[in-house]
């Protein structure tokens, strides 16, 4: 047999239909691989965000304890006072993207207030006070969490920029007296703790929703 005959057989075998099917199969397979990879990356990113959320949440619980123990008498009452202009701890939105954006914007707002509390407590506490260190730590981790949320959102929704908050940036309270500062600080930290708990829940929910549906979303 010569090569020419072989080539003739090969050509008879590889019909256009077969070839097309093969190509399609390869495309689908590569798509699945990519999808799986994306899913894995989504899960990793989400997991990382969730871990940081839990960390900040845990640290916020300890922070409140430290805060109360640093404010002297009647500290238990401070957190029960109602204060205006504190960000809402609840997450809004229907779609995952909306909810992620809500998490992000709330985080940004709470970070501003936590920063304000840190500044106020700097005047009220000794420089070596553990409260200040914990406030600083929570503040840093909150910023990191916001970045992770943003990064996660970008990975999920690269074509959807995060919109600006509807009411504009959060409003910080005017200068306050010591009592007001103490009350304000306690309320902010308590509310923030609640918010972080909501974030953790949200991220767990998103894990099943977003990372598996990531491919479909992108395709949409």
């Amino acid at each position, binding site marked *: 047999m010569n090569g020419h005959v072989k080539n003739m057989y090969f050509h008879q075998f590889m019909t256009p239909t077969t070839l097309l099917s093969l190509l399609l199969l390869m495309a689908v397979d590569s798509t699945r691989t990519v999808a799986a990879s994306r899913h894995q990356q989504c899960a990793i990113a989400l997991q*990382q965000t969730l*871990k*940081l959320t*839990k*960390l900040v*949440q*845990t*640290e916020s619980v300890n922070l409140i304890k430290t805060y109360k123990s640093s404010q002297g008498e009647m500290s238990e009452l401070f957190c029960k006072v109602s204060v205006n202009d504190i960000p809402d701890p609840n997450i809004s939105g229907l779609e995952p993207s909306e909810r992620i954006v809500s998490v992000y914007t709330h985080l940004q707002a709470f970070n501003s207030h936590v920063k304000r509390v840190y500044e106020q407590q700097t005047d009220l506490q000794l420089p070596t006070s553990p409260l200040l260190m914990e406030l*600083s*730590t929570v503040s*840093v*981790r909150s*910023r*990191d969490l916001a*970045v*992770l949320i943003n*990064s996660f959102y970008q990975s999920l929704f690269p074509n959807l920029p995060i919109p600006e908050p509807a009411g504009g940036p959060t409003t910080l309270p005017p200068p306050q007296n010591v009592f007001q500062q103490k009350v304000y600080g306690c309320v902010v930290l308590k509310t923030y703790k609640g918010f972080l708990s909501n974030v953790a829940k949200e991220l767990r929910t998103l894990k099943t929703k977003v990372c598996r549906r990531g491919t479909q979303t992108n395709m949409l």
Partner: protein
Amino acid sequence: MVFARGLQLLVLASLTSVVVRCDRPTKPVNLSCEAVQEEKSIFKTITCEWDSSGSQSESVPTTYTLIVKKTSTDEIYNISTQLKRAELDLDTYPNHMNLDVWVTARNKLGTVESDHLIHDANYFVKPNPPSDVQILSENGFSTSLLINWIHPINKVYVELKYQIRFAPRGSHQWTYVPLMDTAKYIQSFRLQNLQPDTKYVIQVRCKNSVYDYGYWSDWSTNATNRTPEDRPTSKPDLWRIDEDNQQWQIISKDPVFSNGKIKSFEIRIESHRSKEWGSIPVNRSDADSSTGNREITFLKKMQIADDRSVKVYVNATNSVGKSPEGLLFIPAKAQGGVLAPVEDLKVWPEGGQLWVEWNAPKPMSVQEYVVEWVSGGWLDWQRENKSTRRTAIKGILEKFVCYNVSVYPIYSGWLGKPARTEAYLEQQAPLRGPNVKLKGDPGRNEAELVWEEIPLHSRGGFITNYTIHYSSGAETHNRKVPANITSYRLTGLSGGTKYDTWIEASTIRGSTNGSNHSFTTLKYAPGEIEGIVVGVSLGCLFVIVTIMLFCLYKKDVLKENFWPQIPNPGESTIGNWSPDYPLRAEPPKENCLSGISVLDVHMCDAKCVFEEDKTSLSLKKDKYLSEEHSSGIGGSSCMSSPRQSVSDSDEGGDMADTTSSTVQYSSVVASSGYKGQTPSSQPQQSIFSRSESTQPLLDSEENPDMMVQEGSRQFQHFARQPRFAECAGNEDTADFDRLRMEPQEANESLDFCPLEEDNEQIAPPDRLSAEWLPVKPASSYMPQLGGYRPQ
């Protein structure tokens, strides 16, 4: 010029390139970072290390910069150093944030960057070990222990996994729990399949649960607890000590799996017609049981009859229950020979152990083997299964100690005959040498040495030989003898010499000298002195006896020579002679002087006369001499020194000379009688007399005529001769010679001792010697011809 310039530039470029190659910073490699836990969280400082093949140069120093970047926020932290290690403060350790870590090396000649470490911050975390590790022992779970601990850090920071290891107390060999069983965020774990009633030491450590993340923490501090007791699950190890041929001691080791403290042994002994039961309590402290060695308990002493076999059954009991039954069957002595021993038993040290090897006895089937080793009063044993032919002794053996190693085959529980040998785990030179001493007394050339064997505990090994050293100071000798010899006879020694001797005992590892013993050999061999003394004594005795015999048998001769009997002139016929009495002629005796006549002869004739006199005289020369010698003989002390008598002098020389040299002290008148002749009865006209006086003759004496007249007086003179001679004896011996005067000189006045008229001196006539004949009275001596020979 141009060429030179170009050459300069070329050289400069080369130098520059060399410098550059030498000093350019090298790329940092093997970058590793670690973030440790502090209190409840991760410390904010990260510590990184790296390697660099280049070294610091003073001229071109290299600066390293550690850079940590939060990839999400692009925040950068850095620190510079010239070391290869740096600690970087990150304000707050960014848990769950990605970090990019690298190191740059920079100097004047350039910058080089290390590889980047891009990981989650938890990748670098090293947590603290688990805290408060506790071990719980639960009754009813004798093979299990529950371990509890506390997480060192909240899982929100780092989720951990754990690893557990445990070991029986006293053992350095850890057993690790499989990681898959504990690689979880757990705080407790149940260890299983442990040994009952055993103390265990347990440790726990932890690490980031993410695969390949972080570093293992240090192991927690030791946590210890003992598993609960359980009933013994193996049988006690029965054995026996053969104290003497009739009595055995049954002993037992605790079961291998005692699972608790053995409180008693239940023993049952069955023999031909009897059965015994007993319970032996065990009193043992906790310290004894904690050593890990199986204790040996003495159970019972038994009398073994030669014709009886015995079966022994033993159970060990602890607080939970009873062990399986151990047994030992001891055959009767008569039957023991049927149970053949092992063959070709060998024992040797190797690798710090004592190895035992043997061949199975034929053709019997062995159930198991028992290897026993005994040293001094200490005994131990171990069991080996029936297929074993070589094993190492597992007990603790001491070096330089002799062990009696035996292998017993067990035939269905019956104890077989042992095969035995001795062995050392390690040998050394003997600790001391043998003490040598002498056996008996040393001889002149030999001595027998004897020594005792070195005690077993000081031997240190098998004695291969003894070397006997002996030294006289000048030189040292040695003799090698086998080890089974304890005495030796030294020969070829020098007499009267002090020897130092000592014995050197040798093993394969060295030698040791024993004590020094000194002895001195005899100067004379035993009996030699006695022999000498006896010999000398015998010799002396022999000489004495000989002398005595000689004296006895030759006493006459001696008497004649040494004690000549001086005739007493008083007893002679001359002495008794008186004019009134006729001269009684006596028959001449054989050996007496007879026939002496004083002749008036000429010199030559005198010579003849003298010669005749000599022949006729029976007096020996010696007699004269001896008489002359003796001072006691007739008192002739004047003749004490040997000197020649007149007769001697006559013999010795010319007669004429002799005659001339002698002093005539007597003159012999010829008579009718010569020797042997019987003098006639007729009175002799001629008288003769002889005197041994050394005094020269007086004129009167020289004239015989004068002698007749003075006969009696002369006898008195003769009788006094000893005294006379005695007087003369006081003078020098030369006086004797002076007496030998010429006849003419004889006329000269001579010094004579004054004659003493002493009647006592007159010897009785019957005592007169036959030699003396009456002299012519009243006549003086006839002058000698030739006269006296002057001195």
